[in-house]
């Protein structure tokens, strides 16, 4: 503040014009006080400028922008409660005899990890609530980041200049599920131990190096005593460090590139319309952290999650029926259930188990690689080199929306396949039939969903055009003097119609002519032909927004009835009876 005064004071008088007042009113007492502490910091860091800039930063408002916030806050809640849990959890597979207050397990031999988790659940006051909040927050984290990814995908928020952030986001999503798996495996209960058993099994089947890999990870034969401390080190140190680092880059890029916004009146590709951080976003986003934390605390208080005491300590020979991983590992587990056994091959004394490798080792990285490269693929196909800060309405990108829905369908089939045994029991059906249903659905459902989604999008776009061209049905029936009836259509106000016409018209890319201007054949590269085909796949049946000329033509069309009914409001009434309506 004082610097400003000095600058003002030193300002040459000729810079002032008539009507210029003093640039600053005297700071209030509160401002002086903040200025005092902040001034001390600013003298040493020069933070006033960036802080002032950040406090004024504008964020657009939309409910779907909260999804990423939920993910961010759930992660922070995991970090807080996780730090608490480390104070009591003993990451050791060392054997101990349980003597805590959970009577059914007293006297049983178990690992220290399991015994200390029981201790947290039954003997540490409030330990169970922290454990349950931790687990619920982890589940919430992955649900929220998944739905956040859907939002980003379907609105095209991954387009230039945000491709890097999309790639960072896919890394975050992959790391989050690995982090989750490492976390729920730590208590060393029978259920999670069975999960580790399966993990050891499919690691062992990796071609060539499988046995070395599994002996390396487990420090010897399964289960050994090393896996719990190693998972612990990954869960509390390695992965969180990368998660937090990538997350910082993720949110930093959002600030640097400014948030995308939905289209609407006054919103353009060159501005951000919304509320500034101070005070509105500080209150809304800050308050939202407490809401997320509060809701998760309520879930922890009232809904039991992962009751490890009911499963018993891990032992490789017993098993519980209905063994399921946490939901986000479901798709990989489902893939393992669907893959047929004939994918295992034996040759020259070697065994190649594609029935396992495809589901357990290939699918997971494949899903995230496909996600990661999608923006680059779409950019290549569409040839779109512009920056995009206005989001697409999903209907305005029918092919992308269809692809996304098809992907979600395939993922969902895998995920539900991981529950085939539960379904068989609950529905009283044959597990073989359910498995076959999923096997077929995996190939049949995504194309159907793609097609249906795309048709729905195109229809919605046509309805948007219809609304703009013909107004809305008013429900008012008008009778003409010669006895004809028609419904009056209201032309919407330009302001609500803007949303329906704001997007760019699209068309497939054209191949360059096969002969150049001298008549010399110019064979199109295979790459170009592929690109042209893909471009047609994206845009061949595109429905483009109404142009002013089309609207003018449509309005003119309605004149014959208007002439009779409402000459004063030419253009606002459209004949419903006119068969030649567009």
């Amino acid at each position: 503040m004082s610097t400003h005064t000095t600058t003002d004071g030193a300002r040459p008088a000729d810079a002032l014009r008539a009507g210029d007042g003093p640039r600053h009113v005297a700071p209030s007492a509160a401002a002086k006080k903040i200025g005092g502490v902040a001034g001390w910091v600013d003298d040493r860091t020069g933070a006033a400028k960036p802080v002032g800039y950040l406090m004024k930063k504008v964020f657009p408002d939309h409910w779907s922008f909260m999804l990423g916030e939920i993910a961010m806050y759930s992660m922070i809640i995991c970090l807080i409660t996780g730090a608490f849990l480390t104070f009591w959890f003993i990451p050791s597979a060392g054997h101990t005899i349980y003597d805590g207050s959970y009577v059914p397990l007293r006297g049983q031999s178990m690992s220290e990890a399991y015994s200390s988790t029981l201790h947290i659940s039954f003997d540490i006051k409030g330990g169970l609530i922290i454990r349950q909040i931790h687990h619920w927050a982890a589940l919430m984290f992955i649900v929220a980041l998944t739905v956040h990814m859907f939002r980003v995908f379907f609105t095209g928020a991954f387009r230039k200049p945000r491709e890097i952030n999309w790639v960072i986001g896919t890394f975050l999503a992959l790391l989050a599920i690995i982090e989750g798996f490492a976390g729920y495996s730590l208590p060393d209960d029978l259920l999670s131990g069975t999960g580790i058993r399966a993990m050891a099994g499919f690691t062992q089947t990796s071609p060539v190096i499988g046995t070395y890999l599994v002996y390396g990870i487990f420090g010897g034969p399964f289960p050994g005593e090393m896996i719990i401390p190693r998972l612990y080190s990954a869960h509390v140190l390695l992965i969180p460090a990368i998660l937090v680092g990538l997350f910082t880059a993720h949110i930093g890029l959002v600030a640097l590139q400014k948030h995308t916004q939905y289209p609407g009146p006054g919103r353009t590709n060159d501005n951000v319309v919304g509320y500034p951080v101070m005070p509105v976003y500080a209150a809304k986003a800050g308050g939202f952290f407490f809401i997320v934390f509060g809701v998760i605390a309520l879930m922890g208080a009232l809904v039991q999650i992962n009751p490890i005491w009911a499963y018993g300590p891990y032992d490789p020979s017993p098993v519980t029926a209905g063994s399921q991983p946490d939901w986000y590992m479901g798709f990989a587990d489902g893939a393992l259930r669907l893959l047929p056994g004939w994918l295992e091959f034996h040759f020259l004394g070697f065994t190649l188990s594609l029935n396992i490798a495809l589901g357990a080792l290939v699918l997971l990285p494949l899903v995230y690689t496909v996600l990661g490269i999608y923006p680059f693929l779409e950019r290549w196909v569409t040839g779109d080199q512009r920056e995009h800060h206005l989001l697409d309405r999903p209907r305005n990108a029918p092919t992308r929306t269809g692809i996304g829905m098809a992907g979600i369908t395939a993922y969902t089939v895998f995920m539900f396949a991981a529950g085939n045994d539960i379904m068989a029991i609950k529905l009283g059906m044959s597990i073989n039939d359910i498995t076959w249903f999923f096997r077929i659905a995996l190939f049949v459902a995504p194309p159907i969903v793609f097609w249906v989604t795309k048709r729905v999008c195109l229809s919605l776009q046509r309805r948007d055009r219809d609304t703009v061209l013909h107004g809305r049905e008013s429900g008012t029936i008008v009778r003409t003097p010669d006895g004809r009836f028609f419904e009056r259509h209201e032309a919407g106000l330009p302001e609500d119609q803007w949303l329906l016409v704001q997007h760019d018209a699209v068309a497939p890319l054209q191949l360059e002519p096969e002969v150049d201007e001298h008549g010399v054949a110019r064979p199109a590269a295979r790459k170009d032909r592929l690109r042209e085909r893909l471009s047609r796949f994206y845009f061949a049946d595109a429905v483009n927004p109404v142009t002013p000329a089309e609207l003018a033509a449509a309005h003119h069309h309605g004149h014959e009835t208007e002439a009779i009914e409402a000459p004063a409001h030419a253009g606002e009434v459209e004949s419903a009876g006119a068969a030649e309506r567009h």
Partner: protein
Amino acid sequence: MNEQDHTAPGTEVTPTDGHGSAVRLDEGHVVGTGGLPERFTNPGLPTHVPRMADLDEAAARRAEKQVATLFGISILGTLLFIVLYFALDVNQTVFVPGVGETSATNVGLGVCLALSLLGIGLGAVHWAKTLMPDHEVVEERHPMRASDADRAEAVRVLTEEGGKSQITRRPLIKYTLGGAMALFPLGLALQVGGSLGPMPQKSLSLTWWNGGPSGPGEEPTFKPLRLMKDPENEPIKASDVTIGSVFHVMPEGLLPNPETGEGGAKHLLEEKAKAAVLLMRLDPSQIQSQKELAWGHEGIVAYSKICTHVGCPVGLYEQQTHHLLCPCHQSTFDVTQDCKVIFGPAKRPLPQLKITVDDEGYLVSAQPFREAVGPSFWERGQ
């Protein structure tokens, strides 16, 4: 009605009837755009609609009270949390409708914590929505790319200034540096990779049934081992195995004494993970495999309990159909057909353990497993 049939802007729109008197150019009867823009123009920000609290001081005061009440609830929640922390016993239970009998500290502390958090959160959001300014602010965006001059300067610094190191002129330095940088991680990688665990050696193909400890480096020699009930650790008389019954079995010497917890394998879980066996008795006429009959004893057959898919214990035996089902991924094995896979993702049958009876009538192993148990691995056929 097909929007695809829409005439593109700038082309003739067919008149529908003789209604062709004077029309404006922009109404579509002429070739050309008729002076119309190609796109609609953005109407600009809508007018701001004031809220109740902006117009009415009473409404604003009401909002203030609501926000304060929410913050008050938070304060109460925290205080109650502290009270309950001291008042409740850690093992106390409480009946909550819809939840059932549950831990009192969990419900009490959790609900209080939720109140203290939700009070703050809902209060802050309500405050922001009712009382804080709701005029939308417009901030300009600028293209992400730096100016051409800045780009050129960055390239210049990299090449010209960086070039002053003479790296391009002195290939000896360039290549040795490249080599050194490429190689230095190898030492660290070798340390961690090489020391993570021992080599498997033969241990994946051996089990306790080979005669004793079967970890890496062990060379057990075969001796017949009694089949012991798990977890009682008692030998099984062939005459006690009735048709339709099933036993969970471990080899003699593996399990510790159930009373004292002493004895047994040094690496108990590692041995159990390979040696677990299921023992079943079928009517011999139902068994379709000659080898299965020969390796059993009067219809008593023993199979590895470790699934050949990813190694879960095959825990579910259907007595009527003689099917074994793995609860993890639903591989189904038919005991009447030498545990062949009849459904699910596993490929190989469960390995059979050849058994016989000793002089006292107890079941004993006649030979170790003839193949590796559990999940497949690359060199298992070697």
